[in-house]
């Protein structure tokens, strides 16, 4: 039997969830606040929360020193480009495995997933050398390819589970109704799978946007996305927390906003099939 929701319990839950939420959100908030401090204030002990001299100088400096727009554009091309390329490969693959499964379908799926279990650094040297020899280092093409490949297993898995949710009888009904393969995909499968495809796409864009191993290893300037832009404020010139924070804020803002507006779709996508 469910316990009654008393006002006291409600208050307790509210406080608890705000606490958890704030703890999770705190690093982002701190980065955001720090980005408006001078370098001196940024490292002050005890830390300063609001009672410091607010300044925009970090943003000005960061924009002077590096080409934010170039990195932003690179991030967009890499995340969106790799997502679309991956979807083009993943949709037919997931379709085939969900609706025309063979004896080894489960094994293939597990094998694909297993590639995600290997630490990326394990293949760094071969991939680096391949990129070097084919002239793909520091190119957008190279990064789109690598991002497509590393996110493909997750995409196929997600789409596979969505497609599995579509009852086979509906597709059989379409076949009985005279639909050929093209019509079946166009009129039945795709409309029914669009919520799943959309949330997979969003999640993949976010993953690719935030990816910071391969983007740091395989780019230096021309194709460098925002991850490289943030990193450039950490090592070479020593640690400049305020500028680093300004760069981070600018780098995560776009994806944060995208995530904010697509929350519903993302949550629905990630819990798809769990609750009917």
């Amino acid at each position: 039997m469910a316990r009654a929701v008393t006002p006291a319990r409600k208050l307790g839950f509210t406080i608890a969830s705000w606490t958890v939420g704030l703890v999770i959100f705190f690093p982002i908030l701190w980065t955001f606040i720090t980005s408006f401090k001078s370098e001196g204030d940024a490292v002050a002990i005890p830390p300063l929360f609001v009672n410091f001299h607010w300044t925009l100088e970090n943003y000005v400096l960061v924009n002077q020193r590096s080409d934010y727009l170039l990195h932003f554009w690179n991030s967009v091309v890499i995340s969106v480009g790799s997502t679309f390329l991956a979807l083009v490969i993943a949709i037919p693959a997931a379709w085939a495995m969900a609706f025309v499964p063979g004896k080894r379908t489960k094994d293939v799926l597990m094998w694909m997933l297993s590639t995600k279990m290997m630490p990326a650094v394990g293949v760094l040297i071969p991939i680096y050398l391949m990129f070097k020899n084919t002239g793909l280092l520091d190119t957008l093409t190279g990064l789109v390819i690598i991002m497509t490949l590393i996110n493909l297993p997750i995409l196929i898995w997600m789409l596979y589970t969505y497609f599995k949710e579509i009852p086979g009888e509906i597709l059989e009904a379409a076949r009985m109704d005279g639909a050929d393969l093209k019509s079946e995909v166009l009129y039945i499968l795709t409309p029914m799978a669009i919520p799943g495809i959309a949330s997979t796409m969003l999640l993949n864009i976010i993953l690719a946007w935030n990816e910071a191993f391969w983007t740091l290893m395989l780019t230096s300037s021309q194709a460098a996305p925002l991850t490289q832009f943030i990193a450039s404020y950490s090592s070479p010139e020593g640690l400049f927390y305020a500028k680093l924070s300004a760069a981070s804020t600018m780098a995560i803002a776009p994806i944060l906003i995208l995530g904010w507006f697509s929350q519903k779709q993302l949550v629905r996508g990630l819990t798809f099939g769990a609750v009917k």
Partner: protein
Amino acid sequence: MGKISLRKVTKKFGEVAVIPSLDLEINDGEFVVFVGPSGCGKSTLLRLIAGLEDVTDGVIEIDGVNATQTPPAKRGLAMVFQSYALYPHMSVRKNITFPLKMAGMDPAEQERRVANAAKVLNLTDYLERKPGQLSGGQRQRVAIGRAIVREPKAFLFDEPLSNLDAALRVNMRLEITELHHTLKTTMIYVTHDQVEAMTMADKIVVLQAGRVEQVGSPLELYNAPANIFVAGFIGSPRMNFVTGADADKLNAKTIGVRPEHIDLSKDAGHWKGTVTVSEHLGSDTFLHVAVEGQDTMTVRADGDVAARYGDTVYLTPQADRIHRFGADGKTLK
């Protein structure tokens, strides 16, 4: 036209022969019911006719044309699924129009046919709704609507009523039967419910383990079952089977008597027994009687029989209504 012939049709899943070589003729305009316990291959057989499963061996002819390799869409058959299989993202109108759109039919004709089907099935007010907003019975009607607009050669029904509640099931049973009278199109109907089979069919095909046990009209199966399996499967409550001395006397391994063909007496009769359960339905009373030296027997009596738990009763089978079976389970002539 909708004449369907199966010749030596075989279906294997891996090494398992679900249907070992089966022959069957379905005539144009017939209402044929495939009935049998679950796992007997009746749904598989329907799916083979539909083309949703490939036959392992044998030939399926539709109107005299070999359709064994024809894809489902080109067979000219319509199917109603157990789960209804409506397209959830389309309105009722679009669901019903879908097969016509796939056939590339003229839009005005599409409109006319959908309106007509909606009228026949009482769906006119629901055409703009999505399947999710309909009740089970309405969804079932949409599924039937989607089948009838195409004016197919034959309708295939795969246990279409099993998701409905009892009252609705009886209604839909009548509606489908009426639809058959109106359309006069061949219908093949799969069910595990022998009452549906008896009430709806022109011809019943009783299946067990992928084999046809008997084909015949409902009353033929009831009056002259070919073997013990059919005798036990058709008729409700089930036929009583008796072995031993009573069977030996009639030169049979087993004899069978239906519950309605046993006379009940409080004083004297062939078998003496004790009532274990009495089910009063108003119109009838079903008595379950523990008979000495036999299995429990079921007797159908009038509604006003006042027999209760523990009462002693005497049962006498009607001599001309006894079915005799040999050691192989087949009916002895």
